[in-house]
């Protein structure tokens, strides 16, 4: 944000000088102690091997003792299981800040919290946010780097895709008589006050993808998201669109009976609410849109070793299979199927897809995000 552009020189010079002196001393001290013990500075290590191997990484991460993740909801692609498994495996405490936050909130936290000890160590963000903020992230390559297709990673290793899914329509059958299975049906007046995105598309990648899917259904393309914006403008104008974010409690309380969100999120809601109502999941028949999220390590991560160990864990077959159990499609799925390391039971849980989606290119993602940022607020007022 503005901290990058403005020069606070006048107001903080004295303080800055003191900090520089103190910082220099600290670095000098750290350097001398590091040299003595031969320890690796993990905040610059670009792979586990370059830092002295996985066991050295585990040792350093255990010494840090904590890991700060941000915006990883418990029921989102089974992040709750990822976290508890990691904690048990390595004895490292994981703080999940703002679990229901958006990609933008993750970026803001990285920018605003700087090198504070509470700053996020790692993020899991939408593709456009990774592309626009690559300079905030540390280059690192997990052991399975070569299993990730070239289109799904930054050549320098500052971000790489982790898991993905399809935009889907979740629907509460106790409130909605006939659940929509396409975007075209959603303009029907019977859905007054029913349809929600899981968050605003200006800050959340999931909702942004929902708008893009709507664009595909309304004559748009991966190069043109505009019809999606117009579609939601119509929904808003007709009163079918609910402003409330379709988060778990809003679904459970019936505030958002129809939610456009990732298939893995909607699939998780089915199980969570089965005692109260039936929650159906449908991939819209008129739009098949899929996208991956991106993992990245904060360049100023307060727990640099734990951050790297977390990524190693997530991209090991164990971590990838947990995402699969949460109905998401891990990036290494094709190679895991080939090598046989995939959990067959979890693989069968994946929501069926009729038409495999094409993924947007990086340039298309950036252009679409820019248009949403410019047009969305005005289209909804």
């Amino acid at each position: 944000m503005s901290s990058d552009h403005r020069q606070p020189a006048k107001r903080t010079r004295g303080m800055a000088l003191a900090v520089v002196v103190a910082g220099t001393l600290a670095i000098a001290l750290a350097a001398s102690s590091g040299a003595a013990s031969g320890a690796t500075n993990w905040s610059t290590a670009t792979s586990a091997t370059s830092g002295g191997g996985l066991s050295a990484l585990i040792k350093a991460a255990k010494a840090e003792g904590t890991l700060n993740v941000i915006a990883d909801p418990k029921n989102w692609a089974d992040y709750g299981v990822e976290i508890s498994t990691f904690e048990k495996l390595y004895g490292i405490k994981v703080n999940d800040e703002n679990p229901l936050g958006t990609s933008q909130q993750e970026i803001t936290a990285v920018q605003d919290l700087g090198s504070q000890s509470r700053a996020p160590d790692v993020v899991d963000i939408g593709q456009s946010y990774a592309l626009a903020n690559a300079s905030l992230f540390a280059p690192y390559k997990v052991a399975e780097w070569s299993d990730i297709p070239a289109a799904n990673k930054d050549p320098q290793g500052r971000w790489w895709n982790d898991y993905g899914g399809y935009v889907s329509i979740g629907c509460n059958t106790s409130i909605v008589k006939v659940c929509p299975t396409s975007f075209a049906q959603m303009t029907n007046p019977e859905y007054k006050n029913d349809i929600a995105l899981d968050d605003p598309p200006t800050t959340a990648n999931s909702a942004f993808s929902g708008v893009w899917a709507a664009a595909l259904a309304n004559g748009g393309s991966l190069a043109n998201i505009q019809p999606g914006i117009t579609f939601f403008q119509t929904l808003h104008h007709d009163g079918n669109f609910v402003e409330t974010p379709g988060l778990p409690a809003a679904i459970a309380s019936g505030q958002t009976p129809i939610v456009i969100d990732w298939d893995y999120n909607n699939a998780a809601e089915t199980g969570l609410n089965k005692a109260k109502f039936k929650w159906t999941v449908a991939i819209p028949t008129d739009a098949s849109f899929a996208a991956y999220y991106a993992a990245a390590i904060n360049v100023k991560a307060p727990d640099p070793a734990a951050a790297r160990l977390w990524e190693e864990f997530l991209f090991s077959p164990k971590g990838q299979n947990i995402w699969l159990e949460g109905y998401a499609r891990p990036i290494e799925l094709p190679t895991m199927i080939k090598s046989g390391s995939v959990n067959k039971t979890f693989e069968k849980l994946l929501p069926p897809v009729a038409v495999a989606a094409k993924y947007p290119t990086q340039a298309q993602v950036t252009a679409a995000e820019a248009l949403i940022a410019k047009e969305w607020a005005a289209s909804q007022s």
Partner: protein
Amino acid sequence: MAILVLAAIFFLGPLISAIRFSLEQTNGKDGLGNYTQLLHNAALGGSLVTSLEIAALTTAIMLALMLPTVVWVRLRLPRLALLVESISVLPIVIPPIVMAAGLATLQSHASAGLSNLIFSSPLTALTPVYVILAMPFAYRSLDVGVRAIDLRTLVDAARSLGAGWTTVLGRVILPNVRTAVLTAASLTVALVLAEVVIAETLLYTTYPVELVDTGQAQLGVAVALSVLSLAITWMLLLAISFIGNRGASRARIGRLL
């Protein structure tokens, strides 16, 4: 009379609904499931500890700053009473969200050293601001308390017996304005346990922020927690009025003797 019936429905309805709603479990049966979930929620416990620490520190700083000022103004600067009081009311003019905006900007401009020193912990970042937010009503209730006693006589008597200013404040004035201090303290604690806007904007997980997060994930649990919060606030206010009354009656007895 119509208004009384209306008021009873409008005000008791949500309270009764909240209690009933909190007893509905996810398995469809009624029970205390949402309440027992609270006990297993480590994040909630942690955030409550954080908020209670902030509340204690805020109350301490508020009293240490405000009580001497109120006494001093009444004793030595009565001409400036109105001015100082007006200053203490200023925070009301600034909505919490604007305060949050100012602090967020401050944080992003602060040097790395300063930001690590102050903003890495909610205790150091939020406490100073919460003292400011508590100021308008804390100052007023302390002022009311101090003016109800014969300040000058008490202070002169204590000073002539050789008491220093610390003794005068802590052992002479404080016991005599106990009710006012308790009121100011309880309002401060209530404020800290309810303030969500500043903490949320600056990305601190205090108890009220955790309550909002819980509300987005598990509504039943959040409603149960709200019912508990209200009950606790009510008891806190009752307890204070009880202690206050006891203090008052003792003062009356003292006068009779």
